[in-house]
């Protein structure tokens, strides 16, 4: 694996003539936790779906883990959590996890281990045998995260993973993300519009109207804009362009 887990070169995407992603380039270094920060509708999900190969960019080139996207083999190495929970609500949490584990061709033994690990990570072990239809919003979010981790992927791409999760669990999930990065050397790309989460990332890319306004470490960005917190960084960065 090269220095960068993800390399986007001059990516562009339009939906019905409307430019959603202006030509942009971005690099995600291997082994880092990168935050994609931006208000709702700025193009975060579109960008992520292009990285996954689910949307084809109009222009530009995307390389992930030494593969040129789209590439099916690549999907084994990516743990993906969509913005909206895509779960089989008439099945139990365990059945959902086992189903996805089978799609990654895990052996029975591995499957049982990984399901137990992932469920424990998101504190769902006790509810694993309940049907998902009876889960709360936060529980569904956690189950989605567990599914993203099920095959022990090298790269995690998480689209707003902590929306609807209470502050205590949110903190735990971030601790776990940081542990995964540090102890298991995972590369993690997270989108968020919560400014408090921005602090915890190694690097940030600030997106607005499909363009990257600024990128760097949280400290660099704050210093650059002479701001106290990220709300201020965002206001100043946005103001500079508009």
């Amino acid at each position, binding site marked *: 694996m090269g220095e960068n887990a993800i390399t986007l070169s001059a990516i562009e995407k339009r939906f019905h003539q409307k430019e959603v992603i202006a030509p942009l380039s971005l690099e995600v270094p291997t082994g880092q936790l990168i935050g994609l920060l931006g208000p709702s509708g700025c193009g975060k999900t579109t960008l992520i779906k292009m990285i996954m190969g689910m949307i084809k960019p109009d222009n530009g080139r995307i390389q992930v883990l030494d593969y040129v996207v789209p590439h099916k083999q690549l999907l084994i190495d990516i743990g993906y959590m*969509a913005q909206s929970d895509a779960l089989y609500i008439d099945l139990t949490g365990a059945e959902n996890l086992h189903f996805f584990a089978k799609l990654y*061709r895990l052996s029975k033994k591995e499957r049982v281990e990984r399901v137990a690990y992932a469920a424990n990570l998101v504190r769902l072990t006790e509810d694993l045998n309940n049907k998902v239809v009876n889960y709360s919003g936060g529980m569904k979010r956690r189950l989605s995260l567990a599914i993203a981790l099920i095959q022990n992927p090298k790269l995690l791409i998480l689209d707003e993973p902590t929306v609807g999760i209470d502050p205590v669990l949110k903190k735990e999930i971030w601790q776990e993300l940081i542990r995964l990065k540090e102890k298991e050397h995972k590369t993690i790309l997270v989108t968020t519009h919560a400014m408090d989460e921005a602090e915890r990332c190694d690097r940030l890319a600030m997106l607005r109207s499909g363009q990257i306004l600024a990128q760097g470490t949280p400290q660099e960005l704050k210093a650059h804009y002479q701001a106290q917190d990220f709300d201020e960084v965002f206001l100043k960065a946005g103001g500079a362009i508009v």
Partner: protein
Amino acid sequence: MRIGAIVTRIIQQMMRDKRTLALLFCAPLLVLSLMYFIFNSDESEVTLIVSHGPAQLIEKLEAADFHVIEDDNVTITQLKDNQYDAWLDIQQKQTKLTLLNDDPSAAKALQMKLAQALQPEQASSMTFVTDYVYGDEDTAIFDIFSPMLIGFFVFFFVFLITGIALLKERTSGTLERLLATPIKRSEIVAGYLVGYGLFALVQTIIIVLFGIYVLDIVHVGSIWLVLLINSLVALVSLSLGALLSSFAASEFQMMQFIPLVIVPQVFFSGIFPLDSMVEWLQNIGRIMPLYYAANALNGVMYKGFTFSEILVDLLVLAGFALLFILLNIISLKKYRSL
């Protein structure tokens, strides 16, 4: 194994959805029984072959709007092959009427018309015998359209249930999520075909057995052929339902396909007589899967056709299924280009 994962999941989901299971397995039996009680109790040009008929009789018959073909050497096989409605063989001692009887109500009408036309002659001492190519004088209208009805129910309920199940997968995002895993598009389609196909097969077996052993629908041919035809019908309807679900945004829109896709097929599959329709309209049926299904089912159950006689219909049905399956695989490109 990925296909197996999808199949297992579908079985888990279906077993938990008791109402859908009931709809799949009980509703067709209910409707079929209702139809049975209602129908166990129209007109077009009739082709009549006359052998050894005197000239004035021919004239009289033509005046009565029969399409008369004079031929002294006719065989039953010719009658079958050319779909001639009846054959009147006039001999010294007796007159023999052979009815094709592929449509009992039409055959009864023909008999009455013929009796009227022949009245003066019958007054003379001539004896009159009637013979049937298909069925007998007791053949009820239900007997000839029930084979098609069986095919129709298999088609309708499988279409509805798989269409809506797949639509749910599309709208809930689970289908898109599935494509974010390394599964092949063809594996997804195969998984759905096998998963829902199993339920469709059970349904088919129940309907066929119920029709034949409980309602006592005539079946001259092999029951295995009936199951084979209906399995193909289920496959066609499964793949068509899955395909059309990508053009529907809600369950209500899926229901809107019923008048568009299902009802026209009912009209053209032969449940209603087509003979009185203009020819180009009759040919529309040929683009519809149920037309071939009805043809084959009617052939096997009512006329006792063998495998080779319905081979063309089976091939066309398999062709439809293959086409829809391929289109399904292609349509999944919407979610992932590979």
